[in-house]
Every structure is written in C-alpha cells, then in structure tokens.
C-alpha cells in the first residue's frame, strides 16, 4: 500500500519534471529548488508535531478519551469533537497533533474525522486573517454557513462506510 503510493507520487513528480524540462531548463531547476526548499522549511514543524503527538497521546487519560470520543461515543462524540475542532486555535501543527494524539489514545475514526473537518473548515482565525481580507464578505459568510453541517456529514459517512 505505502509502496504503491510512493511509486505513484514519484511517477507524478517525474511526469511534471519532464513537462517542465520540455519547456526549459530554468523551469525544471526552479521547480525542483522551490519544492526542496519548501520540504526543508516544513520538516521541523512536521517533525515536532508527529513526534510530539506520540508523547501527548501517551499521557492523555485513555478512559476519558475512550468514553467521550471513542468508537462507542456515537453522535455525542461527534458533537464534542466538532466543537473541539471549531475551538482549536493555531496552525496545522496544532490541529493535526491533537487529532493524531486523540486517535492514538482511543478516539474513534469518525470522531477524529469530525474534529479535523471542523478544525479545517471553521477555524475562526483563518477566516478573519485570510478569507475576509481577500474575498467579498458575503462569500466568506456564505462559505462558513454552508460548512456548518459538513463535519457531521463526514462523520456519519465514516460511520456508514466503515474502515476498509
């Protein structure tokens, strides 16, 4: 599975690099350079988050997480997770670290999906910092309003489809 994904991804990289190269050496070089720089800029943040979430998961009270957000918590757990996602401040490191820690310490997959979907769609700070200055206000609020049911729909779909 993981090998197949790697092969597929690097195939895409090879095709894109080929297309870039066919349009000129400069395009190929700047694409490769931009990508590698981006990778090294991201590494510290992802590394701290991934390694940190393992430690955080270990100290979280498993019984409490299991009872509130476990697979048996059902829709109540989804509501709690959605509220938690909406209230989580900060950038991607925070949201993904908390989600991964919860999953490792016994939260159910639909509940974690509700959390990360709510966190990604509702995040108030992102709305105010990025969306409001760059788009007409009515579109921003329309987007926020229609996003409200999405974490619940995502979680319910996860429950119905189940994990393969």
């Amino acid at each position: 599975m993981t090998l197949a994904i790697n092969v597929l991804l690097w195939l895409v990289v090879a095709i894109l690099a080929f297309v870039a190269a066919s349009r000129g050496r400069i395009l190929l070089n700047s694409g490769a350079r931009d990508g590698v720089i981006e990778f090294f800029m991201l590494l510290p943040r992802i590394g701290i988050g991934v390694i940190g979430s393992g430690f955080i998961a270990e100290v979280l009270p498993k019984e409490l997480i299991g009872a509130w957000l476990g697979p048996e918590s059902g829709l109540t757990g989804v509501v709690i997770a959605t509220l938690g996602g909406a209230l989580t401040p900060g950038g991607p490191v925070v949201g993904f670290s908390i989600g991964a820690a919860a999953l490792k310490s016994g939260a159910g997959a639909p509940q974690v999906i509700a959390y990360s979907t709510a966190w990604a769609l509702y995040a108030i700070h992102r709305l105010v910092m990025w969306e409001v200055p760059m788009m007409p206000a009515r579109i921003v609020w329309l987007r926020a309003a229609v996003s409200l049911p999405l974490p619940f729909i995502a979680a319910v779909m996860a429950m119905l489809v189940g994990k393969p």
Partner: protein
Amino acid sequence: MSSDVTPKRRRRRAFDWSTAAIAAVSLAAAAMIYWRDGAEQFLAILGSDLTLFGEMLPKVLAGCLIGAFVTLLLPREMVARWVGHESGLTGLLIAAAFGVILPGGPITIYPVAGAFLVMGADAGAVVAFIVSWTLIGYTRALVWELPFFGSEFVLWRIVEALPLPILAGLLARIAVRAGFAHDHKQDKS
C-alpha cells in the same frame, strides 16, 4: 476591503508560535513519561514515532515537488478564466477539481478564489473550490496529514470527503437563491 495584492508576509517559516506551543506540551509529556514509565518506554515511543515520520518523508518531499511544479506549470489566471466560464453542475465539479489540484496555503488560495468571482464564477463554485481545497487538496493531505495519520487513514478520509465540496456548493446556491446572500451576477447567458 478587498485587495488583489498578495500580502508581503512570508508563508514559509520553519517555526511559528503554534509549533512552539506544541513543542512545549510535547516536551512536558515526554518528561512525564520518562519520569513515570522510565527510559525504556520513552525510547519505545520515540522510536515508533521516528519510524512513522521517516516512512512518510519521501511522500512529503514528493508532495512539495508536485506543488512546486504545478505552481509553475499551471497559470492561475487560466484556472480562474476556466472556472469563471463554467456553470451548473459542471462548474461545481471543475471548481472542486481545481481545489484538489492547486497547491499552496491560504495566502495563494484565497486570491485565486477571489479571481474566480471576478472572472464570472458564481458563489457556489467559489464555495466548492474552497471546501475542496480545505478537505481534499493533495498538498495538505500529503504534506501534513500523511505523516500524522498514515496513508490508510488519510486515503479513507479523503474518499469519504469527496462529495462534500459539491454538496457545499449546492447548499451555497440554494442559500443564494433563497436570498441569504445576494449574488452579484444577475444573469448568466
């Protein structure tokens, strides 16, 4: 207050306050495990997380390279023009597809969404684009989600999120039609 000038603030930072907060909490948790469960448990957790992280690095690098090349090869003006000219369900599908394909963070995505409107796209298409980028955009999934959750979980989550951008776009259109938010475009030939 709309501006088409990209803010000068750099998105690329190797460290920020969110990371500092998580680092502090992680250090406290790590210290607590070391003190409570001993060095062996501490090293076991560190080892398994480092393995997960290491396994994901080639995918993260591939994600960064794909993002960089797509940014260079796919002019955003062309995307905006394309989305702006479509309507109906096709318009939603195309907008959602570009949400998946276009790399980058909020600093590059929201100006593109704003450009869609200028080029004649309706509110539904813009909403579908933003929701799609947020939930199934590959850069975010590859670069951020994979190292934290592993391939299987992320693939499964994305498959189940596929209908959501279209649904959001349809809801937005219904809301506009019901007078919740006035669409600036009165007619579409």
